[in-house]
């Protein structure tokens, strides 16, 4: 039996578009599910419907087999951690953690024990009698977790719990939450806009966009087999390079042309994306992750799999170098939206980022030869964004 099940769940605000559109999703018992997507994609709304903080417009939502559409939040057997922690400022840590127990009229002695256990688990024991304002961000975050843990709910809900922390603490808390969830074995639904968090934390990741579920899969599968162009571009950092290219098929040899380059695809690519063979003469979107590039001398490839580019920016990261350059092809948009609306430079070209080995020293303005590991590449239909499998 699944712990949480969305079937056809929709949310429509007054005179607005659907914030969540017919969401179908089963979350297994004990699973760590992450909802990820850009802002406004409906991930928080989905979580809030699950929490009972938003009315469900349509569809059916079950927790532990029970339909909870019309159940108030307190009766859903869930606990939630908010982005701003939402601690009760006038209560001590002890009172904050124990509030739910107090409301539920749990026996005082039992409640005390539970509070202390939770505090112990989170390393808050010495702060129990402090007020939230006397705590650091990380400690407040842990108090919010404690408030959730102490109720031993069926499902934990977390709404971007780490986004108010500084980068170092965020990494620390990330692993703490993973370990905590593994230890408690409680089902967790975790909302984030940060795809790194999504990838590192979730057993499975649900990618949402404009209220529509794009793909649910374990992180690695999401990365290796994106279900569409959006998932491909959203997951991974730096994100996948998407290049509009023209296909020519000659027998079983597939060649892509873009800018002044002609690239012959490795046979492995065609095996994984057989749909390419039907696209002779049409445009497709060629997806290369940054690590699918290498400097020409580093790997063995055919000459037809090497392109010459001008280095516009080289970022030495230590183990690797990120090489930025621009191809003279129209940038890719998804449903009329630019992938990166902030970047004006995309207006008349496609910026690509290649990740090459860190032993190379690359200077700005230099012309380099990039080898393409085409057997790892992805190919999408520009019309519907589907992969050409």
């Amino acid at each position: 039996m699944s712990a949480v099940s969305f079937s056809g769940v929709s949310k429509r605000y007054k005179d607005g578009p659907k914030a969540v559109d017919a969401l179908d999703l089963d979350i297994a018992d004990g699973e760590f599910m992450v909802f990820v997507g850009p802002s406004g994609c409906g991930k928080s709304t989905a979580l809030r419907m699950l929490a009972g903080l938003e009315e469900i417009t349509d569809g059916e939502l079950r927790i532990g087999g029970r339909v909870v559409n019309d159940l108030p939040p307190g009766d859903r057997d869930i606990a939630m951690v908010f982005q701003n922690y939402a601690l009760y400022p006038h209560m001590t840590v002890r009172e904050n953690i124990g509030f739910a127990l107090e409301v539920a009229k749990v026996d005082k002695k039992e409640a005390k024990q539970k509070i202390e256990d939770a505090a112990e688990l989170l390393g808050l024991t010495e702060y129990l009698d402090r007020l939230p304002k006397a705590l650091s961000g990380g400690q407040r975050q842990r108090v919010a977790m404690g408030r959730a843990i102490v109720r031993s709910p069926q499902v934990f809900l977390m709404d971007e719990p780490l986004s108010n922390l500084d980068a170092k603490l965020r990494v620390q808390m990330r692993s703490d939450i993973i370990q905590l969830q593994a230890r408690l074995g409680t089902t967790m639904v975790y909302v984030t806009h940060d795809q790194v968090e999504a990838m590192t934390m979730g057993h499975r990741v649900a990618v949402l966009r404009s209220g529509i579920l794009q793909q649910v899969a374990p992180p690695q599968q999401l990365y290796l087999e994106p279900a569409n162009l959006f998932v491909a571009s959203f997951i991974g950092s730096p994100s996948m390079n998407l290049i509009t290219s023209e296909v020519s098929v000659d027998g079983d040899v597939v060649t892509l042309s873009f800018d002044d380059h002609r690239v012959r695809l490795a046979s492995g690519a065609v095996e994984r994306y057989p749909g390419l063979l039907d696209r002779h003469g049409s445009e497709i979107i060629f997806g290369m992750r940054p690590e699918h590039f290498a400097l020409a001398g580093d790997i063995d490839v055919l000459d037809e799999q090497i392109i010459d580019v001008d280095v516009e920016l080289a970022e030495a990261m230590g183990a690797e170098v990120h090489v930025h350059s621009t191809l003279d092809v129209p940038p890719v948009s998804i449903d009329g939206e630019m992938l990166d609306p902030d970047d004006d430079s995309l207006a008349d070209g496609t910026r690509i980022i290649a990740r090459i080995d860190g032993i190379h020293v690359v200077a700005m303005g230099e012309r380099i030869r990039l080898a393409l590991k085409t057997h790892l590449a992805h190919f999408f239909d520009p019309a519907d964004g589907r992969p050409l499998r």
Partner: protein
Amino acid sequence: MSVKRKGPRATAVRVATYALLITVAIIVLFPFVVAVSTSLKRNTDIFTYPPSLVPRTVTTVTDPDLGLENATVYELPGSDGQFALVESDVPVAEFRRIDDPEVIIALPPDQGVETDRTTVVDGDEETIYLVEVDGSEVEVFRARLTVGGLFQPLDGEGDSESVVELVNLATPERVFGPRFENFSQVVTEKNLGRSLTNTVLVTIAVVVGQIVTSVLGGYAFARIDFRGRDRLFLLYLGSVMIPFVVLIIPLFQLMLQLGWTDNLVALIIPFVFTAYGTFLMRQFFLGIPKEIEEAALIDGASRATTLWKVMVPLARPAIATLATFGFLYAWNSFFWPLVIINSGNPDNGLLTLTLATLGGRSSTDTNLVFAGAVLAMTPPILVFLFAQRYFVENSASSGLK
């Protein structure tokens, strides 16, 4: 904390600032000091010249050897030492020197020896008398015959001679002596006690009532979604713009129909509902992050529990502000009670009403009027002193982010 400027210029600026502030503080505080001092004075002590801020009392002496009991102590012009007033209505002749009519010599009438000569003073013919001053005879005329006091010297020997002097020329010896009886007297004799009880009762009822209705109303306007909420709120808020004088006649008629005239209820119920308080609480509740309430909801708390255990404690500064304003309003309200409470019914009087009558009717007891005023203004001052931080600290957002 900012870094303080240093150097002589900065010091001069600071000194000037403090000097200015202290001056203003003295000017502002002076009326209060006068009120308090007057409330502690004897009635006879209020209009003395030169005026004194310190309540004083005359000194008395009791000395069986001298046959004195509670005799007032005076200083006499032209004599050293202290004198006790033994008898206050002995006949006195007021003689004035011929060569210097400004000098007054007060003596028993028989100590002036009448001559048959006369002189003219201010166009009147006056008989010349001879009196003895410091062992020599002086020519005087008798300005008038009156009554004066018989004063006995206190520091001389037992056989020192008593002196006759006009009482208004003698200065009583005054020492610091507040008269606290003014307060008990005004409370018991001038019916201020009953008024005080009524005022306290009405004030508590109004303040508690205002808090209850404002918290409930403010919460509803802030957080409960219902049809026409914002319009209703605007309408409600608009009522703040109506001056109270406009409402007096309709309100009076309403009270008349309810049978509440000359009744304390009429001072409470109409003021328990306050648009201002509702507005204040609504604004405060709007400022509390929604997530805190949602967290309580998820913790299983009902709306009532959330309101009572989470929102109200967080709103304490706003509630304290509201309570302070409500208190000051109810405590000081004068015009409506004047209209609705029958002035012939002292049982329903309020402090403000009784004080007004006190000032008008028995204005001779200035010290009692001031004692009543001090009693009336002490609670508001105390409330302000204790609640002033709520005027300053109007944010409870600390610890939320």
